[in-house]
Each structure stands twice: as C-alpha cells, then as structure tokens.
C-alpha cells in the first residue's frame, strides 16, 4: 500500500471505505439468507478500528468482539475468507464453523472474536502477559464496547494489566448502547476515564467528530504502550447506524430518537475523511476497494460448504 508512509488520511479512507462497503454488501445480501448467522454491523464505527490499526504492525495482536468486521478488515484480515466465512463456506477463515461472530486471521494476529460480552478482555491481557514474558516488541490492542465495562471481567482485567504494567491498549468503542440500553442507565459515576485511572491506567476520551484527531490520539496511545509505559485506555465515542444485530436501520424500536441517528449519519466520518483527499486519489481508492469487495463475494459464492465429516474436526488440537 503506497499510502502507508505518506498520507494517513488516504490510509484511513481506504480502510474505512473497505469496511463500509463490505458491510453494505452484507446488508444487500442478508435478505437472500445466504448469510445464516447474526451480523453485528460496524457501519458508523469504522473510524475507530481503522484509526487504531493504522498504527499497528502485523505482529501486534488484536482482540475484538462479535461486532468484529471492522477490526478484522482494519487489521488486514483476508477479505475473501471473511466473506466465505459469513457464507458458511469451507474457504472461510474458520471453514464455516465461526460465522460473523468469531472472525479470525492468525496471519495478521487478528485473534478470534467472542460473542460473549467482555470475555475477550482477559484473554487480551493474557496475551500481553505472554508478550512481556517473551520479551516481544509487539503490543496488544483490545477492543470492546462500553457495555463490556459493566462486567466484572473488565475490572479484574484492568487491575491485573496495571499491576503488571502490561503492553496493552484498551480501546472502548462507546456507541452509547448495549443492544437497546443506554449507557447512562447502566453506568454510574463520572465515566470510564475515572474508572480507568482508579486502576492507575491513564485514559483519554476521544470524541468522534474528527477522525484525523482520533487517528492522532490513538497513535499517541499506541506509542506510549509501545514505549513500555504500561497499559492505556482510550474511550472512543462513536455510533452505530444500524440495529444492534441485523441489517436494518432500526428506527422501529424507538430506543433512540431519530434525530440522534440522523445527526450521526449526517456527520459521517467516512465522508469527512474522503473529503480530505484529492478527488483522483479518492476515486482510485474506491475503485480498488470495490474490486476487492466484489472479488471477495465472488470467492464466497464459488466456495463450497464443508463436508459433513468436518463436523468432528478440531474439537481438540492435535
């Protein structure tokens, strides 16, 4: 990727555009029932994964959640294998056993995602412990929703990461909701920053208005962790445009005002980043990424379902 060294906005746009377009295709395909598993879309939240991962090396390790398409793609996961996985095909990144909720790509150290909220957090801390024991230069980045911070596992994980000064960046994607439940109804007190600092972990709240600012702050946080300064947390304010699960825009459930959603859509971060680019660069990125998406879908369509006997494979590693 030639933009890697010279134009962060271009890199960000490429990554975010890919995520957006992959998910728009999922929305288009979903009614065909070719994707027979729940999908938790990241549309609206692309900037977080894209901005953070832009600062990561291949050897850096990321953990995410069932809302994991964006992270998988931003970390450089294989697009055709992701689509094949959603189709439940044998060429999927987990041979059809995982579906949308458990994407994995060990090639780029995208660890598998979990559908049980907050369970990946302690795993990420454990990976950071291992990296420290192995004297690796890599770091771990752990993504989770604000809802996950309700869980005891978050508390225990933060405490241990801080005690051991582990090389881990916690990234909270605060999209205000856990399913249809607003964060203010679930989280008492002054906020995540105060909680994080109460474990001795520096924290920063990053509003979602300007993706390039997010990019810069995320870079600073990654750099601090990489310098061995111990864990950090960034709380990235963001918003999902679609329903908690599934492809719809979800205005029917009325847990959030239409005006709130409309304002977020109007402030589309993908457009903001795209507008920073010269038109021809932007166009060339779009053309290239459109082709990747189309190829990935074709790949998924062409792949076959696993044979019946595969059901018994991999219960144990051997």
């Amino acid at each position, binding site marked *: 990727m030639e933009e890697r060294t010279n134009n962060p906005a271009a890199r960000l746009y490429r990554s975010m555009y890919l995520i957006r377009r992959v998910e728009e295709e999922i929305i288009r395909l*979903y009614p065909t*029932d070719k*994707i*027979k*598993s*729940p*999908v938790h879309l990241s549309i609206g939240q692309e900037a977080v994964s894209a901005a953070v991962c832009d600062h990561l090396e291949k050897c850096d390790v990321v953990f995410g959640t069932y809302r994991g398409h964006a992270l998988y793609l931003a970390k450089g996961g294989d697009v055709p294998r992701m689509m094949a996985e959603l189709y*439940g*095909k044998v060429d999927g990144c987990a041979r*059809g*056993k*995982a*579906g949308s*909720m*458990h994407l994995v790509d060990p090639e780029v150290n995208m660890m598998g995602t*979990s*559908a*049980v*909220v*907050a369970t990946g957090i302690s795993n990420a801390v454990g990976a950071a412990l291992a990296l420290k024991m192995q004297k690796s230069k890599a770091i771990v980045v752990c993504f989770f929703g604000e*809802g*996950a911070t*309700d*869980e*005891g596992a978050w508390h225990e994980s933060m405490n241990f990461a801080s005690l051991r000064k582990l090389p881990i960046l916690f990234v909270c994607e605060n999209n205000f909701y*856990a*399913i*249809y*439940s607003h964060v203010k*109804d*679930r*989280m008492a007190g002054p906020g995540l920053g105060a909680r994080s600092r109460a474990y001795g972990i520096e924290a920063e709240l990053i509003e979602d208005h300007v993706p390039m600012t997010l990019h810069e702050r995320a870079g600073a946080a990654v750099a601090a962790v990489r310098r061995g300064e111990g864990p950090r947390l960034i709380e990235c304010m963001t918003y999902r445009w679609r*329903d908690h*699960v*599934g*492809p719809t825009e979800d205005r*029917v*459930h*009325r*847990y959030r005002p239409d005006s709130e959603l409309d304002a977020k859509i109007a402030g589309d971060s993908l457009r903001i980043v795209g507008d920073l680019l010269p038109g021809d660069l932007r166009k060339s990125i779009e053309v290239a990424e459109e082709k990747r998406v189309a190829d990935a879908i074709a790949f998924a369509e062409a792949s076959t*379902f*696993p044979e*019946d006997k*595969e*059901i*018994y494979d991999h*219960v144990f590693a051997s």
Partner: protein
Amino acid sequence: MSSPADVLRPEGRTLTYGEAVFEATRSEMARDPNVFVMGQGVDDARGMFGTTLGLHKEFGAERSFDVPLAEDAMTGIGIGAALMGMRPIQVHQRMDFALLCMNQLVNMAAKMSYMFSGAHRVPLVVRAIIGRSWGQGAQHSQAFHSYFMHIPGLRVVAPTTPHDAKGCLIAAIRDDNPVVMIEHRMLHNVRGVVPEESYEIPYGKARILSPGKDITIVGISHMALECVRAKHLLEAAGIDAEVIDPVSLSPLDIETIAGSVERTGRLLVVDTGWLSCGASSEILAEVFERIGQHRPFVARRLGYLPTPCPTTRNLENLYYPSPQSIADATYRLVRGADAAAWQPGTVDSREVAEFRGPF
C-alpha cells in the same frame, strides 16, 4: 398428568409458548407485589422475545427493569432481594451467559436454606433461554440444565408446551426455593392450548405426550416436540412409540419413565444438550437402577453431537437431533442393528425451518 389430551388437542384458547410465559409472569405480578422481573432488555421494545413486553409500563419501572451487563452480581442481587422476601425473576436471553452465574447459583442460592438450617429461603426464578435459532454458533446455543440438575437445593423445569410453560413458571414463582426454568428459543412461537385461569404444574411429574407400546422416547424441552414428529414418521414403519416429556428435570419423575420402559422394553432419551454427564445419562442410569434387575431393556441416547456447535447450516443440521435422526435411531433400536434399512419420511420442524435471522 399422564393424559396428553389437554396439552396436545387444540381445544380451548391457544397461546404461543412465549405468550404463555408472559401471561404467567403478568398474572403473578398482579397477584403478588413482591414479584419482579430483571434482565438485560426485559423492558425494551423486544421484551425478551415478547415474554416481558410492556410489563414495566403496567407494573412500573421498579418491577420490570433492564440491568447492566453483570450476570454474576445481578444473580447475587436477585438472591439478596429474595432473602428479604421479594420474588425476583431473572431472565437470561441465552443460557450460555448463565455460566457467569454459576458461583451465585450453586454456592449461594442452592445452599442457603441448608447452610443456615432453614433460617433463610431464596425464592428466586432464573429463566434461561437456549439460544438455537439462526447460525448462533458455539457460544449462543448451549444448554446447561444438567449443571443445575447436579446440585441439591435447585429445582429445574423444562416445559415443552405452552400449557406447561405457564404452569411451571407460576409454580416456580410461588416456590420458596431457587428454580431454574429452561426455555428453548425454538418453542417460543409454538402454539398450544392454555387455560385462562391460574394453575401450577407440579414438580416431579412427567407427561406422556403420546402413548405407544413399542418404545419409550423421552424428549427434553424442544426435543419432546421433535420426538412427537418422529413418532409420526415411525408409524410408516409400523412402530408405535410412546413419547414422554419429563417437564420437571429436578426432581425427575423416574417412576413414569421407568414404568413406560417396563412396558415397552426400549428406551431412547433425546436431549437438547450434550450427552456426557447430561440429563440423558441420569435418566438412563435411573431407569436401569429401578428396573434393570428384573426387566431387560435396550436403550440409547441422542443429543447434540460431541462438538461445539458449528455455525454453517449444513453442519448445524447434523449437530441437532431432528425428527429424522430420532426416527432412525428408534427404528434401529426397535428392529435391531441388522434390520433391513429404512428411510424415514420427511417432516418439517416448522419452528426451525421458518426461523429467520438475524437472531
């Protein structure tokens, strides 16, 4: 309890299973101000698949409320409220999340009456929904009823019909002990006769869903329905199966089940869960202990394949027992392993086939 008439024949008012759960909850909340409901999303626009829809409006936000993602503490909070005379109903959208509550349920709820020699009681109801629906994969499809059956001090019910769902939940709410009620997501839209009045389904009473003489098939939760379908397939092969729904898993009505095996000489237990140390091993072991000495019989167990649940549809279809696989296993048990091959017909498990995503 042994007549299938009232639950299987379409006489009288019908409700879906989900509606029956809702009706039980609502009527008990109206009857007893100490009853309340808590769980992630119980007061949202989906209302836990409709089973708690609008209760917060009718009874106030204090009595049906959303909770933070904190399964362990929320269970403990339910227990603490129960100690003070309240009657909480805690709902888990997926039974998989109840793994986070094992410490409170096993170490606390199940033991308080005993540990304190009756000084305390814990009238807590835990509704745990088995999440099979639409490619849910390994972490959203599990069934842990055997975990609760293992523990003295817990009651476990797994009603199959709307009728029993209503009566089991009412009994659970009124019980002074912790009760885990297992609900299979595939049952929520199934319809059946449900009396309007209030009634309790007693613990420890199995239900003969459909009598027969050639083999006893015990089906747990959603599997009871699949077993009834298998029974119809088996008619083509001239096999007359008796289908039993245990309804209450702990205590278990082993008498009814063993009595049936005593007649048929054959037993197939079909569980909506894994076999090893599961409900099916307990049922088989107890039947054997009870009648094995004087009545030879043959037996088999079916359940989830011994793997995590795969997501892709063709493997998922293998993973769960189906009317066909149940009929097939039954046929071989009745006719013997060497019998001529037989191909069961097909039947739609409507609630499975018609289920659509996203979840």
